[in-house]
């Protein structure tokens, strides 16, 4: 494959190479996100991939760095030259190829150079970790969306997201609701974007196969486990700061921070937000239905 198109949260990505040494093999999680063509009047994120050696980064300085992985491997860092950014990452595959992904936060088109260390006939997936999630994140932010650690569910024609850190019950509550007939969009990572006048919850490609799913967003709930179910509505900066803490962000670019804050503030103005203290059993279903009824009264 020398070219393919992805549709992730209604953002189109055109991935291509004219390098004879490179071909693409997208991961299994992307199969349902493949698109045949880019719709008219839609500007795709262009991702151009080439093989090469380590590019000169004389004008660039490291502006953001990540710690080593638990097994001591380098993951990624961001370099900048005052105008453009370069994401310098390492694929976590057997060859541990170095990747240099150049982008500008005004358009987030990507010019990717893979340092293949002289190997020939490279089969690669530009959306492999760690590059893929970062490409999705910045491309989402520039397109006035957010990427959030949350589970998303459609229940009784209402869309809920449940935000929480690991162990607070994102997957548990999604599973309980699914057993009562609700549709789970995803139980870990979501993109939220405004389409016309409504915010939409989208799933993203994961390491496993799943269909592309979406549903309108009506409730944004921050989870806490508790002996009983309780809902505390939240507005203004409290809601914004809560939602922000569950959003993926790296905060090295003023433009991307501004975009993210604008989007989060708008979501918190248009969607019911609050803390959901919940006990993980089927009573939470009735409790959520009552929150929904009270809102629509």
């Amino acid at each position, binding site marked *: 494959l020398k070219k393919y198109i992805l549709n992730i949260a209604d953002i189109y990505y055109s991935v291509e190479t004219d390098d004879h040494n490179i071909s693409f093999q997208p991961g299994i999680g992307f199969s349902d996100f493949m698109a045949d063509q880019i719709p008219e009047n839609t500007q795709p994120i262009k991702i151009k991939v080439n093989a090469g050696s380590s590019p000169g980064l004389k004008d660039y300085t490291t502006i*953001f760095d*990540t710690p080593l992985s638990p097994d001591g491997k380098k993951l990624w860092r961001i370099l900048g030259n005052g105008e453009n950014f370069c994401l310098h990452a390492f694929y976590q595959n057997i060859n541990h190829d170095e990747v240099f992904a150049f982008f500008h936060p005004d358009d987030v088109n990507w010019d990717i150079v893979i340092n293949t260390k002289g190997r020939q006939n490279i089969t690669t997936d530009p959306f492999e970790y760690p590059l893929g999630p970062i490409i999705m994140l910045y491309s989402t932010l520039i397109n006035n969306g957010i990427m959030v650690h949350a589970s998303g569910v459609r229940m009784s024609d209402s869309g809920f997201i449940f935000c929480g850190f690991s162990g607070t019950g994102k997957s548990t509550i999604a599973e309980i609701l699914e057993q009562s007939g609700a549709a789970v969009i995803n139980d870990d990572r979501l993109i939220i974007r405004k389409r016309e006048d409504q915010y939409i919850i989208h799933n993203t490609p994961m390491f496993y196969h799943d269909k592309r799913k979406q549903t309108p967003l009506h409730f944004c709930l921050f989870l806490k486990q508790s002996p009983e179910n309780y809902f505390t509505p939240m507005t*203004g*900066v409290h809601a914004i*700061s809560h939602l*922000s803490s569950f959003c993926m*962000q790296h905060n*090295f670019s003023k433009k991307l921070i501004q975009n993210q804050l604008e989007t989060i503030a708008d979501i918190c103005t248009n969607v019911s937000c609050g803390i959901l203290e919940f006990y993980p059993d089927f009573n939470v279903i009735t409790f959520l239905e009552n929150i929904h009824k009270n809102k629509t009264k």
Partner: protein
Amino acid sequence: MNQIFRKKNECVLKKAGNEFLLVPIADHIASMNSLYTLNEVGAFIWEKIDGSKTLAEIVQEVIAEYDVDEKTASKDILHFTEKIKDLIEEI
């Protein structure tokens, strides 16, 4: 109150209703999720911290802008600079 502070990092200030959010532009992973909530007076003081005004001068500007006495304004500004100490440095 003769201390002069300057901002360490550039920040993004966002108004939401009557309050503000302050997000520093991070330079390392540990600070990537920092976010401060400020009231209107806090945002006013933040804008006045410019590396040239003393805290005493900023207190006078706060008194001129808001209905507050000097003692309360001085106490508040010291509390505020303590709250945002990771974002500013004394010169």
